[in-house]
Each structure stands twice: as C-alpha cells, then as structure tokens.
C-alpha cells in the first residue's frame, strides 16, 4: 500500500474543566478524543462513524487545526502539522479544506455567493481578479448551479443548493483532502443522494481524498473504502468498509450495524440493543470504555484497556476479538 495522505497517530484532545468553589474539583477533564489513530488513503474515502458526542466532530476540528491538539501527531503527506504555525499552517490548509454539516451556518448571510466561493482564492493570493471570477463561474457550473448565482445572497437558496455552494468553496483551492463533517445530515433524504453523487463525481474528477464523518451507516457504506468506528472518544474498530460491514468484530460495531434496516424485510438480522446511557467523557469507565453497555463484558474488561487486535477482518479494540491465525 502506498503511503497514506493523512496519518493520524494517537491523537488526543482533553478539555480541562474550570475548577472553583461550586464546580467539580480541579483536575476534571473531558476526554473528547483519546488515542485516535487512522489513515486516509490517497484518493480514497475514509468514513468516521459513531453516535453523537463520540468525538467525531472534535476530531475534524483538530485535523483542521481549529482546536489545539492536546497530544499525538497529524502527518499530512509525511509532514507533521499538529503544531504547525505561520507559513507551514498556511501550506497545510491550502491542501485541506472542509464542508460542514449546517449549510445555513456555512455561508455568511451578508455576503454574496460569489464572494464566499472566492474567499479561499483571494486569501491564497495566487490568482488575479479576472482569474478568480472565472474560477468561481467554473466552480458554480461544476457543482450544478448557474453562473449568475454568484450575485445572489445565501437566503435565496435552498439547503441543498447551499450545500452545493459550500462544496464549490471547499474545492476552490483544488485541495488534496476534503473533510466532510456530516455533509448531508441537515438535508432532506431526497437531496442527499444528489449531493453524495456530486461528491463522488468531484472525487473522480479532481482526485480528491475524503474524510467523511457521519452517523449514517448507509451513507458511509455507500461512499467509503475504509471505516473507523469511534465510541466515547476512542477508536473501537477500524478496517475496510466491505469487511467490517460483512462481519463486524467489535461488539459495538455489531450493535451499530444490527440497527440498520435491511434491504429485504425478511432478512432482518437479530437486533442487538445497547442498554444504559452513554457514559460521561469526564469519567470514562475503567478498562474498556464500552464495558458498561457491552453484552459480553467480563471482569477483565474493567481492569485492562483492550489493545487493538488484528482479527484478519479489521483491527478491533476488544478483549474477546479473535486474532487472525498467524500464517
């Protein structure tokens, strides 16, 4: 396998909670992202899935350097960027762009669409005014909007159209990696397929790599070559999409996939229901973080943090995952 475009190694993000007379004592920390490692292959799509609050979006913010990394490394094309500043950071952001979930918040209500799309190009300072307006027109065409849309304001567009504009802006700099943070979650189901197809077309056309963050298993299955499953800030399972979907190894992944409605109503697999609430990331359970809701939990799960095991299908962080036979 060729070197990954983005290599994330044991990434951590801790938010210290303020101490104080009526607060929790000092030392309370929210473990938003804990030891997360994954790779985005060049030209491929990596899916990052997990339920709300598992640290998916925090991971995206860390990768975009919108939040400071507590520990760990982010390597982009072999260069460490987790502490990059100044020109290094600029160079990194030149190649990594993003599309966010909420198309209503992604566009400033008082700026014309053309200005919004041109913004990364202006900031990069590589093109003349004429070249920029040409590029904006081209981008609008590429995402399926009319060129004269450039003169309109965001409130004159629907959610789907706005997301197309956000995508046009995201690819304006011809980045190598686009971080898609729940790109279709805010859209109507009927629009989702259009946007996903657009994203796939653009990937082929420009050779983009995607990191697709979603809680929707169908979308991730449809779009991704590889998948990373997160639970409470940690990676519980990672592997190729096909293999993980066919035979998930971690109990959490099993439960997750059993919740998807099958294509055929008679072939409904046994539904695994998770009991109890999601534990607090301030006081995560000892040992395996999933043990409080895991149907297979044993004594060992509370004592030791499970190591990531290569099961032959994927890498799963579970004490009971069976390692692949050593050949």
């Amino acid at each position, binding site marked *: 396998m060729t070197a990954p475009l983005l290599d994330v190694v044991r990434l951590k993000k801790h938010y210290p909670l303020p101490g104080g007379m009526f607060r929790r004592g000092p030392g309370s920390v929210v473990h938003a992202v804990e030891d997360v490692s994954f790779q985005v292959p060049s030209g491929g799509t990596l899916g990052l899935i997990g339920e709300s609050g598992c640290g998916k979006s925090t991971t995206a913010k860390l990768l975009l350097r919108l939040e400071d990394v507590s520990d760990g490394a982010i390597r982009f094309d072999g260069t460490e960027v987790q502490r990059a500043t100044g020109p290094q950071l600029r160079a990194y952001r030149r190649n990594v762009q*993003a599309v966010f979930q909420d198309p209503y918040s992604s566009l400033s209500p008082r700026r014309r669409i053309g200005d919004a799309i041109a*913004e990364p190009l202006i900031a990069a300072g590589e093109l003349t005014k004429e070249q920029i307006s040409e590029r904006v027109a081209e981008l609008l065409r590429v995402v399926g*909007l009319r060129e004269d849309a450039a003169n309109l304001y965001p409130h*004159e*567009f629907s959610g789907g159209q706005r997301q197309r504009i956000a995508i046009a802006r995201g690819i304006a700099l011809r980045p190598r990696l686009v971080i898609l943070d729940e790109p279709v979650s805010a859209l109507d189901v009927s629009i989702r397929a259009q946007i996903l197809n657009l994203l796939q077309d653009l990937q082929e056309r420009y050779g983009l790599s995607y990191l697709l963050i979603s809680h929707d298993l169908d979308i991730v299955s449809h779009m991704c070559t590889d998948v990373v499953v997160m639970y409470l800030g940690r990676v519980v399972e990672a592997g190729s999409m096909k293999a993980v979907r066919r035979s998930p190894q971690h109990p959490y992944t099993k439960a997750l996939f059993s919740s998807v409605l099958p294509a055929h109503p008679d072939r409904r697999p046994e539904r695994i229901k998770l009991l109890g609430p999601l534990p607090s990331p301030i006081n995560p359970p000892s040992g395996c973080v999933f043990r409080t809701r895991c149907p297979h939990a044993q004594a060992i799960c509370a004592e030791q943090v499970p190591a990531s095991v290569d099961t032959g299908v994927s890498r799963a962080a579970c004490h009971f995952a069976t390692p692949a036979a050593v050949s």
Partner: protein
Amino acid sequence: MTGEIALPNRGAAWPRVVKWASGLQRLPWLAILMIAPVLIFGVFGPWIWPHDPALIDLANTKQPPAWLDGGDWSHLLGTDSFGRDLFSTLIDGARVTLIVAVVGTLGSALIGVTIGLVAGFYGGRVDALLMQLADVKMSIPATLLIILLGGAIGAGLATIVISIVVLFWASFARVIRGQTLTLRERGYVSLARVANCSDYWIITRHILPNLLGTCIVLITIQLGRAIVTEAGISFLGLGVQPPDSAWGLMVSQGRTFLATAWWIPAFPGLAITLTCLGSNLLGDWLRDALDARASLL
C-alpha cells in the same frame, strides 16, 4: 454533470413606484414625527426661531402660552423669567441636544464596539481584562461619575459629550462581545480560518457586517438615553452655561416656577420626553425590521 438547478427568481412583478410606496407605509411615522423636530431645529435653528433666544425682555416675563389667558401669539409657548421667548430657547436647546446625542452616542459606539469586538473575538486574557474594566465602570454610579468628570474638566459641552462616552461604552462593549462570541462560532468563520483568511479579514468581512444591525439598534436606543443623560448633566449645572440653552438646563432653571409659571419647565421637559420616546420607538422598529431578513440593509 447534472443539469442546472433552477435559481430563485427575484419577484419583479410590481412596478418600482408601488413597491416604494408600500415601503413608505411601513415606516415608523410616529417615531419620525417625534425626532424630526430635533433634527430640523438643531440644524436650522437660527433661521426658524421667531425671536433671538438670548433676548431678555424684562417687561414681558413669565408670559403664559398663547392659548391661555394673558398669552400672546408673538410668544407661542410663552416667556421665561427673563422674558425670553420659550419657543426660541427650545429651538436653540435642540442644537445642544442634537450635538450631544449624536457625538456622544457615536463616540461611545466606536469605543464600545471596538472593545467588545476585540474581547469577544480574541477571548482569553484580553477578554477577561476588558470585561473586568466594563464591570468596574458599571459599578460606579453614573451621577458620581458625571460630578467627578465635571469637576475635573469643568462644565461645558465637552463635559457632557465625554461623560456620555464614559458612561455608555460599556453597554455597547457588553452586547457586542456577546454577539461576537456567537458569530465567532459560526461555520463561515471556521471555514474562513481554514481558507487561511487573516483575523482582520474575518473581523471586517464576517463579524462586523453581521453586527451592523445590532449596532444600529443599540445606537438608536442609546440616543434616547443620551438625551436624558444630557438633561441630567445640564440639570446638575455641569453642562452648557447660560446664556446658551439646553433642555435640561431649562428644566433646572424653571423648576422654581413650577407653581407660578408651569410652562417654563414643562415644555422643555415635554421635548425631552418626546424625543427620547421617539428614538426608542425608532430603535424598536429598526430591531424588528433588521431582524426579519437581511434584505432591508
């Protein structure tokens, strides 16, 4: 690639004149009616007033308004204890009111918005320091501050303007800081950072334009407060000095005649009330008009 997606059509069915007329109808006429006199009197006073406002006529002191017994149509609102025409002094006073309200409010807006913007945008220690400063300011009683400033600078127009700036900046700073905090977290600000935009670019292109509505509303509301504060300062004797006139000063000097010649303090008092009310009404209307959709501005 997929076909083109239909764009919204900007409705152009109505001719422009009709649209313009229907827009006129929605203006806050009551508020405009209350504020317009101050603007007109303040700017064109010397061409409007029927008598020289400083002209003392001791033969005609405390003459009642024209429609009362003993009134005279040459002195519409009557005369004060020195025989000066009340209507003319009122027009003269509008100038001070206008200068103080506009300069004082804009000055405090400029300082307050800058401080609030910097505090909200950069956060951390800068924010803590600036907001502590605002808290300190808010904990000092206004009257005390005015008297202190009056003592330090001396009475006059400058004192009123400076007092208003010192008194009002914190209200701007607080509100703008709060707004900036929410705007800072918007997707388009994060995306601008990802696009390598500078802080200056983000503040001027993304934060400030979205604060504009709030600023305008705050300014109109503070205008009303400024007028009342000006009256208060003049009433305390720290504002403009006779023979110049200001509404607060007129109320202050006229209050001794409340029993014998009520019109001397009543008309300037009424002028203060109406102008303040008008500016508050305008602020309310602007808030609603700007809130609904960005199309108005």
